[in-house]
């Protein structure tokens, strides 16, 4: 079961934070098909947010085909977003780790690297 963390200063709406955190957990394999998401009551009892916000986030995830509600039982994961390349020993990750090593050796700060990565991502996506 995942636990949500709400960052009240992030400027990202609470509903989107919940959606992002589920997608993130699906990518990392922390959530897999068949897993149950926490109920609205469980989420709000831990985070003190509006239960309607949780339901709205779950509806969005359902619309994307990632989860499905089962009446009386809860909301369950339907589909994973995990890709083998994302695993800690995947080839893409290994190449990226090497590349970041080169960036550090070249004296780049973290913010330089982030800006560079973002610029390249923006070119391609």
């Amino acid at each position, binding site marked *: 079961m995942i636990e949500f963390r709400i960052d009240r200063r992030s400027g990202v709406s*609470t509903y989107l934070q919940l959606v992002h955190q589920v997608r993130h957990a699906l990518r990392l394999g922390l959530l897999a098909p068949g897993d149950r998401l926490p109920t*609205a*009551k469980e989420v*709000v009892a831990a985070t*003190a*947010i*509006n*239960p309607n*916000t949780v339901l709205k986030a779950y509806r969005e995830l359902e619309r994307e085909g990632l989860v499905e509600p089962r009446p009386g039982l809860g909301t369950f994961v339907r589909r994973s977003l995990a890709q083998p390349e994302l695993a800690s020993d995947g080839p893409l990750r290994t190449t990226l780790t090497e590349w970041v090593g080169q960036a550090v050796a070249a004296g780049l700060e973290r913010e330089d690297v982030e800006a560079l990565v973002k610029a390249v991502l923006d070119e391609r996506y």
Partner: protein
Amino acid sequence: MSTIALEARALGKKYRRAWGLRDCTFQLPEGRIAALVGPNGAGKSTIMGLATGLLRPTEESIEVFGQRPGDQGSPDGLAFLGQDKPLYKGFTVAEMLRAGRELNASWEQEYAESLLADARIDPAAKIGALSGGQRTRVALAVALGRRPRLLMLDEPLADLDPLAREDVMRSLMAEVAETGMTVLLSSHVIADLEEVCDHLVLLIGGKVALTGDIDDLLAEHRLLIGARPESEPDFGPHTVIQRRDTQRQATVLLRTTAPVNLPDWDSDEPNLEELVLSYLRVAGAQETGDSK
């Protein structure tokens, strides 16, 4: 059409010297968690007093699930938790619950007890010996024991430390998730409400300045930032709520009626706090202007 939990129509309340509330109109649909926001003296407690029937309107009406609060006491389905948490210091927690049971036609003892158990409060403890947060949890249990469809809370977090605030809100939200009840929560601290409320009633000077579902209200407003214009800018059909200029830059809060296409400006959706503060600042400025 959805059920309306609380509705005010041209509602007015005159106190001995002045109007506490005038021409106040709003609807609170069932199932919302609404923030009743405004400066001190804006009429927040007056609205709650009128809804319970403790106060009587001077003009027009207020209805709770279609009933006018009146001689039969508080309307069915309504529970109210006042600012001065109505608890007797000399009572034990269990005696306080018994009072709740005696004073209310509908009462669920087991539910009220389970809320206290969740809060880990000893039923034998004296009310006077509890912390502020624990007292709020007891008062909340007494209010929820009636199984209300509409729960009104007047400044429930005002005297609590941050940990107790979080505890109270978490337990309240969990009960809302469970029951689907409607909540009206007054506060003058907007930061407390941003994650919790989905509906807003903003009172300024006894009038409703802004009301509606918060998502809709935020989407209708735009916060523009741009170079300070040489001449009066034209915003077409949109209404300027507030404009602030520095030497070079202008910040404008716009209430829009259609999609905004203003290429000279950076346009963003405001957050709840920015929205409410802008309306309050404008009202404050008008007041000072009037008194000059």
